């Protein structure tokens, strides 16, 4: 039996001094190398769940375990995000002062190799994303699809074991959406990474072997 890579136990998250309950006792187990999609209406708590899985935030109560160790206590959140998690956001979140090649090097600064090795790895990742001709372009010189591909390359920079994508196709047209999803699934299969995708698009949600829905902060049966 495969051991769980991520495990969520009775996870609750509230905001505004408890007046808003985003998650209400979520239990979830994700095994290593699994491809999972999460869908739900706006405000259902799906992004909050992803943030907690990625160590961006801490729960109000309950636990998120990474390889049976509790995030935030047994596992340092910064180290976890740097080494184990790659984030992909709907709004891309590229740094505007840096070109594509430099954006991909940012997660590796101070962690991986020397300047040259980091630059070479960034270049290889961008080539893998089909952006060999856009290496020195700045984010405002790239199309939305290209920006998201740079963001995927950046997420892969430190060779994470988990990819977390929050509506990665939300700002893309249908052609680019399909291409990005194809890429993510290809990467997941090639590298055996765990892939969790938040989406409100049914086609994408059903593309995964496992799909869960969240409603009012709870996983629907």
């Amino acid at each position, binding site marked *: 039996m495969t051991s769980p890579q991520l495990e969520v136990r009775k996870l609750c998250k509230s905001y505004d001094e408890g007046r808003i309950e985003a998650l209400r006792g979520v239990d979830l187990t994700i095994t290593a190398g699994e491809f999972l999609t999460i869908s739900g209406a706006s405000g259902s708590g799906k992004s909050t769940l992803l943030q907690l899985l990625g160590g961006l935030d801490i729960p109000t109560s309950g636990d998120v375990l990474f390889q049976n160790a509790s995030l935030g206590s047994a596992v340092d959140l910064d180290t976890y995000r740097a*080494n184990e998690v790659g984030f992909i*956001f709907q709004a891309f*979140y590229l740094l*505007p*002062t840096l070109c594509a090649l430099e954006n991909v*090097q940012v997660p590796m600064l101070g962690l991986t190799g020397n*300047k*040259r090795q980091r630059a070479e790895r960034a270049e290889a990742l961008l080539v893998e994303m089909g952006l060999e001709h856009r290496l020195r372009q700045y984010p405002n010189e790239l199309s939305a699809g290209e920006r998201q591909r740079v963001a995927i390359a950046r997420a892969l920079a430190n060779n994470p074991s988990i990819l977390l994508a929050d509506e990665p196709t939300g700002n893309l047209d249908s052609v680019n959406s399909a291409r990005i999803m194809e890429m993510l699934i290809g990467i997941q299969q090639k590298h055996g990474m765990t892939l969790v995708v938040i989406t409100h698009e049914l086609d994408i949600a059903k593309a995964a072997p496992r799909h869960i829905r969240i409603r009012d902060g709870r996983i629907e049966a």
Partner: protein
Amino acid sequence: MVSQLSFAGFAWKNLWRRRLRTALTLGGIAMAIGAFVSLVGFSRSFEHEWMRLYSSAGTDMAVSETSFLNTSLDESVGVKLRTIPVVDRASAMIFNLMDLTPEINAIVFGFEADSYELDALTLLSGRRFQTGKPEVLLADVLAKNMSKKVGDALEIQGTTFTVVGVYHGGSALDADAVIMPLDQLQKLSNLQGKVAAFHVRLKPAPAGESQEAYLKQAQTEIEAALPGIHATPAAERASNNQLVGLAHAVAWGTSTIAMMVGILGIVNTMAMSVFERTREIGILRALGWKSWRILLLIQTEAGVLGLVGGVFGICVGWGALRVLSVLPQTASVVSAYVSPLHLLEALGISILSGLVAGAVPAWRGAHLSPVEALRHD
């Protein structure tokens, strides 16, 4: 060539992106450091020139009654002073800062006609003055600025003097000064029979005795022979006199105010930068950057502002000193000399100011919650 990103390069790009604000902040720091370099440099060069004034004439010690500016020492003290065994030569002197024209002022020294201190000067034309006569020696720089030559008349505070010689001196203080007979300056200042100090040249130190020990012994001997009189080594008198102290105090006070304005500029720049980049800081946190690394990035930017602003400021300050050293109004007390230590001090203060100013914005940026920062518009 693949574009390689370094931590420092990343910090520089963040500053370069906001060129106008960075330039304005650099301007503020440069002005503050420029003020520091020029004002403190001014006061130190003043001190340096006093030391050169003594050393160029071979003066080892100054004998005075109480303080530097006091002119109540009786001239007759010189008779006994010259009989003290360690004393080789003693020269009575008096000085004052006087207006020669509405635009030009200069230090006016009064020396005895046979003073050993006049031996240190190079007479370029004319001759030395004679005691009891209204005659003056003019420094070459001053003579040029005033278009005076040997034989010309020079009016000082209502008295007409004849320029009998033009000399070149060893320090900025006497390179741009007027020297007249002691009795003439006493008369001009209503200080008949009084002097500011006696400059003393000691007999050579006995073989095997250190100069420091010899000076100490001479000081003791002179003060024992002349109760109530102070003997001060030349170096101490150059650095600890009230004029130099006042110049230092004014320079440091003004520089500190200028630096505070400069620091406020950096605080504003860094605070605005952190506020505008809140989301970017959130991105870096999401990518696993630790708080201390964010803090280091912002502090690096602040430090770079301090460093670059400091370099500009040094250029501004040194340029100002060069201008002051040739202006007729200030040339008599300022030289363009700036010690390397003073430049390093200015650069250190500038970088430190950057780091202090960047500390609070950096701390705030480093402690932003990643989720909150990513939500920031």
